[in-house]
């Protein structure tokens, strides 16, 4: 059993850079209305590839949000992360000036694809022109640690800094990592994940995933839990959070938007979706246990919703295994069907959605999904009003990780 004291890590800030919005209020509006924004990929050099549909972040002006000196030395994935971090810090009321104690704020990100566009440009210089044409920023833009390092430098944050280089589930692991750092005494951690996997070579690298959807009609390409499930649609973007010591947040008079109450992770092997049933069920039980939460207390489940029939079946059964009869009654949703699956960024976008859902008392729907073939109460077509005190966020990764995270509504945790 974990010795971590539960209930201490509060979410006090949220920043979102997503295919459907680059502001939290617009993000919620889009989710609530169930808008699908999957579309043909327009990034340069991609239109000949046999992957046509994705969730692209189109309404994003990096130059307006990030200083030139950072822009030139970073890839698009770090632009997203830095912009989202700034939004989250502003939301938490930590956005202005250097922190009084720089060691009291850490930074943790999850990364599943790195700085692919920047890397491809430098590879092209190396192989097309010669080694002397490789620029000085390749060593710090392409690697997985770029976003954590740059957010730390930009904000003056010297607390524990970390990077989980992972498959999708690593997004939840990163948040748990941050919550545990807070549990060990760090005041706040800027945590999250943002990805930019839609550069030509990065897309070529993804084509080998057997779970990728290559359907060309955007509203038919990503339909988990249905008989038409044909894989997942990738996306770019993600979200950053400020996870903060709950007592510190209350002392500062900052609103506690949610509490990270429990997390657990397991591993059942790449593409072994049938076995992910037990792995995910155990992760759910572990997270509930850490949260001190009974299955019946879960008011909404944000599903992994891979869109591969075998994986969807495993997830539906895992929810039933872990939550018992409550598993078939609790509302389940997967708003990612409208925006795509942004690798490690996907579960962060789900956490943001879960916090917003609890705040608004509405379960956002699952766009493009109708006629499901599993015994789940999947919220479809329109948002469903509900009293939401506790949310369960699920994620599985293409390399075999399973993770579950329990969030409690902020207002309910006041002492």
């Amino acid at each position: 059993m974990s010795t971590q004291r539960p209930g201490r890590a509060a979410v006090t800030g949220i920043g979102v850079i997503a295919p459907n919005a680059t502001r939290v209020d617009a993000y919620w509006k889009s989710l609530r209305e169930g808008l699908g924004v999957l579309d043909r990929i327009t990034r340069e050099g991609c239109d000949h590839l046999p992957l046509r549909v994705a969730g692209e972040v189109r309404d994003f002006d990096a130059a307006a949000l990030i200083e030139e000196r950072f822009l030139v030395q970073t890839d698009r994935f770090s632009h997203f992360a830095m912009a989202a971090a700034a939004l989250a810090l502003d939301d938490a009321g930590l956005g202005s000036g250097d922190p009084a104690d720089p060691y009291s704020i850490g930074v943790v990100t999850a990364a599943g694809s790195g700085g692919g566009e920047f890397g491809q440009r430098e590879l092209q210089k190396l192989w097309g022109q010669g080694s002397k044409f490789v620029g000085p920023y390749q060593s710090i833009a392409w690697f997985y640690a770029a976003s954590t390092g740059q957010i730390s430098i930009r904000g003056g944050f010297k607390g524990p800094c970390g990077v989980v280089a992972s498959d999708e589930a690593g997004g939840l692991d990163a948040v748990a990592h941050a919550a545990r750092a807070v549990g060990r005494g760090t005041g706040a951690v800027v945590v999250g994940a943002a990805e930019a996997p839609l550069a030509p070579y990065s897309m070529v690298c993804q084509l080998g995933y057997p779970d990728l959807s290559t359907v060309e009609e955007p509203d038919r390409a990503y339909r988990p839990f249905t008989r038409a499930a044909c894989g997942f649609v990738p996306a770019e973007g993600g979200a950053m959070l400020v996870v903060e010591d709950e007592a510190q947040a209350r002392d500062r008079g900052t609103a506690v938007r949610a509490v990270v109450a429990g997390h657990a992770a397991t591993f059942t092997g790449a593409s072994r979706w049938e076995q992910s049933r037990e792995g995910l069920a155990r992760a759910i039980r572990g997270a509930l246990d850490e949260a001190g939460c009974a299955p019946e207390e879960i008011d909404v489940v944000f599903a992994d919703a891979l869109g591969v029939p075998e994986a969807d079946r495993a997830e539906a059964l895992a929810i039933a295994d872990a939550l018992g009869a409550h598993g078939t009654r609790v509302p389940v949703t997967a708003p990612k069907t409208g925006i795509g699956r942004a690798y490690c960024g996907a579960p962060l976008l789900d956490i943001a959605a879960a916090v917003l859902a609890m705040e608004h008392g509405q379960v956002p729907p699952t766009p493009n999904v109708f006629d499901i073939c599993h015994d789940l109460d999947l919220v479809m077509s329109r948002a469903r009003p509900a009293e939401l005190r506790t949310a369960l966020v699920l994620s599985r990764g293409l390399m075999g990780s399973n993770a579950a995270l329990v969030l409690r509504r902020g207002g309910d945790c006041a002492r």
Partner: protein
Amino acid sequence: MTRRVAVTGIGVVAPGGTGAAAFWDLLAGGRTATRGITLFDPAGLRSRIAAECDFDPLAHGLDPELRDHADRYIQFAAVAAEEAVSDSGLDTGQEDPWRIGVSLGSAVGGTTRLEHDYVLVSEGGQRWDVDHRAAEPQLHLAFSPSTLASVVAEQFGAKGPVQTVSTGCTSGLDAVGYAFHTVAEGRADVCMAGASDSPISPITMACFDAIKATSPNNDDPEHASRPFDAHRNGFVMGEGAAVLVLEEYEHARARGAHVYCEIGGYATYGNAYHMTGLTGEGLEMARAIDTTLDQARLDPTLIDYVNAHGSGTRQNDRHETAAVKRSLGAHAYDTPMSSIKSMVGHSLGAIGAIEVVACVLAITHQVVPPTANYETPDPECDLDYVPRTARPRKLRNVLSVGSGFGGFQSAVLLTGPGGRTR
């Protein structure tokens, strides 16, 4: 309340020899494994030297499937993990698989394979709109950084928390630190911890060329890596892997396992200063050391050896010397501090784990490995760097420290028999 964490197995693939015995033989002998690059033609590069592994996957019993399809850095990790688990005596088939975790680090992951296939799909860097038909079918496994921990978890049937850590050149230390937390805080009873990198490729060499971080001592590769020496002029690229079996102390005792030492503490901070630059003060690394000692309630004067990051760049060695003096005070001058990168090069994310294994071996043999090639003192680096020759010494409490691109500053404390534990 946290649990005690024991090291019960070690495995290593390093330049100069595969396996812990060969590795220790190299270190204790003060020999260097740096040489001209043979893995590709380095013509045109500023730094054309590296510490390469003479790695024969067949001789080390690597699974044929991995031998044929896995990236070099994955193969290193698989071989090191096999050695570590075998050394620990752990029968993974008898353990609860849900209580076994994996925490492995890598700075650059599958970039060597990514570069290889990039050349194929771009017609040698001629086109942005790359041709997917020329790519290898397993390319996605190089693209996904979590392939590393995933492969090793599958190797032993581990089903607990499995993670890949990528904090630049502190990846190895941090992977050990994350595993330490995983076991100490009760999320697993056993965790395989370590790191692997195989970065000796044109793109990685070229990107360090571009910032003059690597040594241009191409005419004398054996003596090119010169940490703390006044004539140091950059690091020498390396490659390799190391894996340790970390185990809850009572779990290890219950099965009668040999305990090499315990992990006494771990901390990491960001310097929030520069992606590649380091200050002359070493404040943040000192803070990591202080926190680590606090966790173990250990007085700094009880540190017997510091395994340095010691990359051999001008600023690193100065930074680190300042940090250790700040944390250990006058005791720093009485504490041997050496860099094995003088012998095995700097394998980016892997080296932190390789250095932890070096510390485990140093405690086991009660011998401090030397800093090879150290000849001319630098006034800014005025500690005892154990020049050229290994030194017998009573070693109970040993620190391993590291710095990484991105500003990461990490420290791990190992406590051997007779050392202070919580």
